[in-house]
């Protein structure tokens, strides 16, 4: 409760400073809109139904855009995980794969994932496949490398103990090696998520994806229209999604690691 109050106090303070800066009229209101204007944008683009005579055509637009972006992100991310973890385990276990696929992963992980955008657009066009491809490329290599490192750091005594208890190949892999490398895999998952999220935003901002307008598209149009409240409003939504993803996707894993491994948390 006390932690919650501290957080509330901190963010109220930020809002207050923002309001004060706006009121001082140091900058043009076009560049620094009032907090209420931003709230107004969010209201108009989500809940405001408008009037009977003049229905609000933007109602749910923010929601829809967030939905489109999240779908691209989650589907691509999931594919990246499902492919990356087994491949990472394989590269860790087989030297031939480590010297080939492992080196490839190392190289491509170093490539900023936004660099995949031009290639994806040329290959697939301005559509969902291109977005999915960008997200998968952002996720995959980090997850492969983290899993490989994790598996190679598993204390061999766990495997030996499991063998004496009658554990065999697939059982050892899924019940011993996989959970034992979890601390590394989770940090790889977080990194993959961050890379995918950034490159997806970049792609959406700079290219109009004809199959669906995501948050990046809304952000881009905020600039085109010189609508700063829209730019900041969308940014706030993007930040909130990031925080929510961390709390929903990663906190449970991290809490589990802290509790079981006894690392401070």
């Amino acid at each position: 409760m006390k932690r919650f109050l501290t957080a509330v106090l901190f963010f109220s303070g930020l809002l207050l400073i923002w309001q004060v800066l706006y009121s001082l009229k140091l900058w043009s209101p076009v560049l620094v809109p009032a907090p209420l204007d931003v709230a107004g944008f969010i209201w108009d683009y989500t809940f405001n139904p408008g009037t009977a005579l003049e229905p609000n055509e933007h109602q749910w637009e923010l929601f829809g855009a967030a939905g489109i972006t999240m779908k691209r992100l989650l589907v691509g991310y999931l594919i990246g995980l499902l492919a990356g973890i087994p491949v990472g385990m394989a590269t860790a276990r087989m030297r031939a794969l480590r010297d080939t696929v492992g080196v490839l992963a190392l190289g491509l992980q170093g490539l900023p994932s936004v660099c995949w955008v031009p290639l994806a657009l040329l290959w697939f066009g301005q559509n969902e496949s291109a977005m999915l491809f960008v997200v998968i490329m952002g996720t995959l290599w980090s997850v492969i490398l983290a899993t490989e490192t994790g598996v190679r750091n598993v204390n061999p005594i766990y495997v030996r103990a499991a063998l004496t208890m009658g554990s065999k190949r697939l059982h050892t892999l899924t019940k011993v090696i996989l959970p034992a490398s979890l601390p590394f895999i989770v940090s790889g998952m977080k990194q993959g998520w961050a890379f995918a999220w950034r490159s997806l935003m970049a792609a959406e901002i700079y290219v109009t994806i004809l199959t669906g307008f995501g948050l990046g598209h809304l952000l881009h149009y905020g600039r085109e229209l010189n609508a700063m409240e829209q730019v900041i409003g969308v940014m706030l939504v993007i930040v909130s999604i990031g925080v929510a993803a961390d709390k929903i996707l990663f906190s449970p894993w991290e809490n589990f690691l802290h509790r079981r491994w006894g690392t401070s948390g």
Partner: protein
Amino acid sequence: MTLQQELAPISPAKLAVEEVSKTFRTGKREVHALDRVSLQVSEGEFVCLVGPSGCGKSTLLNIIAGLEQPDGGRILADGVPVSGPGRDRMVMFQEHALFPWLDVMGNLMFSLRLKPSLKDSERREVAMYYLHLVGLERFQNANIHELSGGMKQRIALARALAPNPKVLLMDEPFAALDALTREQLYGDIQRIWLERKKTIVFVTHNVREAACLGDRVVLFSPNPGRVQEEFKIDLPRLRDINSPELATYSTKIMRALKGHLAPQMEASE
């Protein structure tokens, strides 16, 4: 299989080590860890292998466990050649080897889940029986990192006992513990051995520990690893590590150990 059958002590196995040899290559050097070692362990016997480091005693244990393959010779467990690890021969390592991603109960259930003949509720009962046996049933939901070193080894012992193996192989399981905890565990392991009727092969470099626990102490000599001498320990159980009778035995073994080391040191000078 019923729970009663599962929890009943089973007849322990006899082990036969026949002419086992093992050589390790590290870079240019060749280490002859075991040189045609033969050893008989009868049913229900508690045998301690002692010797200086590098005498191959841990290697022999790993070969009996099936975790390593010998270069020559073979192991028979109940007359059947050992080709790999098996639940009839459980191992307890110097490091506890408990899985940190599982709690105490999860660790015991790990080995029990690999026994297909039991129901999950029965597995839980079996696990509780062994937790009770090592006196830690209150800690069934504890995380591994929350346990002390001695408690971890007790849980590791419970996990090794849970599948009801015929043979228990112990590789310096108490070496990393403080003296007081170790003395408690000497009592525990003797009590459990009497109660559960296991064949135990126990590797240690601590001569007194070997004399305290073993029916028989097998002294190994290094380079190449060979059986040098055997000592029968005719003392009633439960034995106290601090008893003077025990000291007589351990002094004798220690003298044999040093007697073997001394000429070797001269030779190397």
